[in-house]
């Protein structure tokens, strides 16, 4: 009982965030151009959706502009049988994974809570109560392993969300069960207005891993190939039965918390400018260009894909969705209770 049961040092994160861009890492042209294309689409998605929100077509939009490398890196690292557990800010990750953008935006548009079938797409509902989706990811991952499937769950959470008890409980269960799950913290340094220094005094968020006996890894969240690499390794580790990993990506949201937020109240323009200088799109674009990998075709195709996406959004969100008040009662239980049938009838009476 007197010695440490497990070696701890191997679990601590490297002191510097892992990077691919601007290093001597071997380029992966196919992957990088794919990431580039998705970043271009992703940026356009964020911008178009923000514009539509300003026009009143969505209830609210928490943009991930600036965080596209995390969103796209996460989506593209997943296998088809894996599950994604997004937070309310991760619509883009779902879209980059292939989900119909209009379905993905259902929650934020406001016609229903979840606009898609989570099982069909292996994307859990976008989750609003912070960190509460993390234990779901752990449970689902464990269930998959018990069933003998090689499914891995990737759960996304923000820096603020790491303070919630659910973060702690989820990571602890995952480690004790060696569940095939990966936690990606998008550390964008703010929880609405609250800066990281008021959120935690830890050396880094990745350092939280050791307290659960899982490795913590630190990655540059503006470097899409780096995010993709670190997540791919963590997912492979999980798939191989070696247990969960905690990944911290250092990133930044360029926009306010949501369209309803006034970021000028809590952060300096100079700070935003510093981070904009590390725009994930520019970083990857420049590197591709410098290496001669960004042909006109690639750029053209990416731009067109982005415009198609934007046009689709404008068309679909410009129209009013079909609504049915009867839906309010239809899915509370597998079959409505007598009381709900009464209530549905009374409402039908009024709205007829």
């Amino acid at each position, binding site marked *: 009982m007197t010695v440490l049961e497990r070696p701890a040092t191997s679990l601590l994160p490297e002191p510097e965030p892992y990077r691919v861009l601007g290093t001597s890492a071997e380029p992966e042209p196919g992957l990088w151009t794919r990431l580039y294309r998705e970043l271009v689409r992703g940026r356009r998605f964020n911008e178009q959706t923000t514009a539509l929100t300003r026009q009143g077509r969505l209830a609210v939009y928490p943009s991930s502009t600036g965080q596209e490398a995390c969103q796209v890196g996460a989506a593209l690292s997943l296998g088809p049988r894996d599950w994604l557990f997004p937070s309310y800010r991760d619509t883009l990750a779902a879209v980059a994974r292939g989900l119909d953008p209009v379905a993905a935006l259902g929650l934020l548009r406001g016609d*229903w*809570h*979840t606009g*898609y*079938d*989570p*099982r*069909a797409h292996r994307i*859990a*509902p976008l989750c609003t*109560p912070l960190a*509460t989706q*993390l*234990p*779901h*990811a*752990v*449970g*689902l*991952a*464990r*269930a*998959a392993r*018990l*069933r003998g499937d090689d499914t891995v*769950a990737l759960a996304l959470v923000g820096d603020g969300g790491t303070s919630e*008890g*659910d973060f*702690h*409980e*989820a990571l*602890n*269960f995952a480690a*004790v069960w060696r569940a095939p799950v990966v936690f990606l913290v998008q550390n964008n340094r703010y929880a609405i207005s609250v800066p990281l220094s008021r959120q935690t005094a830890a050396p880094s968020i990745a350092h939280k891993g050791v307290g659960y006996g899982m490795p913590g890894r630190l990655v540059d969240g503006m470097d899409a190939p780096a995010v993709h690499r670190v997540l791919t390794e963590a997912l492979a580790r999980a798939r191989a039965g070696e247990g969960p990993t905690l990944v911290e990506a250092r990133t930044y949201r360029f926009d306010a918390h949501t369209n309803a937020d006034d970021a000028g109240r809590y952060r300096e323009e100079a700070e935003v400018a510093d981070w904009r200088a590390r725009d994930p799109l520019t970083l990857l674009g420049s590197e591709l260009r410098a290496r001669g990998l960004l042909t006109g075709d690639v750029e053209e195709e990416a731009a067109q894909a982005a415009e198609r996406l934007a046009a689709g959004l404008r068309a679909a969100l410009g129209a009013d969705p079909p609504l049915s008040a009867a*839906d309010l009662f*239809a*899915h*509370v*239980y*597998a079959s409505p*209770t*007598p*009381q709900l049938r009464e209530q549905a009838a009374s409402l039908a009476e009024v709205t007829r």
Partner: protein
Amino acid sequence: MISMAGALNLALRDAMAADPAVHLLGEDIGTLGGVFRVTDGLAAEFGEDRCTDTPLAEAGILGTATGMAMYGLRPVVEMQFDAFAYPAFEQLVSHVSRMRNRTRGALPLPLTVRIPYGGGIGGVEHHSDSSETYYMATPGLHVATPATVTDAYGLLRQAIASDDPVVFLEPKRLYWAKDELRPDAPPFGQAVLRRPGRDATLLTYGPALTVCLEAAEAARSRGFDLGVLDLRTLVPFDDETVCAEVRRTGRAVVVHEATGFAGPGAEIAARVTERCFHHLAAPVLRVTGFDIPYPPPMLERHHLPDVDRVLDAVTRLQWEEA
């Protein structure tokens, strides 16, 4: 003859044998068999992957069980005591109760949360809460509570087989009560008349059923013929049976252990009155725990509805005007 704990154990065993998707999670439910021994022997029989001692964190238990249900399993969670289910409240209210609705039915959540509840066992602080109101007031949850060994078995099997989440409240002080186990428990949403009576109806459930039956017996010598209706499930609520009975007798008293203010009896009294107003000779009265935190063991007998308090309410049903 089998105890209620035994009947629950049997229900779990049979459900696990019948469906490999049934998985148990909780604190001390494995090797120990649960602090009330309701899971006794199940880890040995079905393996620790099917009957799992989790880390000590109730939100984590319910949250991971939710994820398991999302993958198609049928988790059955044990909360060790009523008050220790509160840490899982957010998962229950914000996720478990809403998952089906949130996804327009695409993601049903077949999950059972077993909670030993209520007092009368001399438990210290936080070990005797009657928390059913919180669950009744949360749309999307079924709320069941057995008062007999037959219902303990039958309702638990139905809960586990249900495609909806069920909060399954087990009256702690009935765990050791023994009776014949019959195979014919009625379905969810059906109240059962445990004793017919002409003069007034006692509406009750769970741990208070025994008190009501005793009160009805005692009332006989005072010239009152009291019926006793066991609600069995609070959600769904059996308006039909309840109203038919109250309309027949014209008088009703709701009896439960939970605190009265905004408690289960409030809903029961209100809905019975809405539906049976002109059949009522007196207002529906309530005999409940007082509106206080659950008392320490040495004082709990004052708090719990007993035969005297039930009879007192019965005598206040304005008989002079009958």
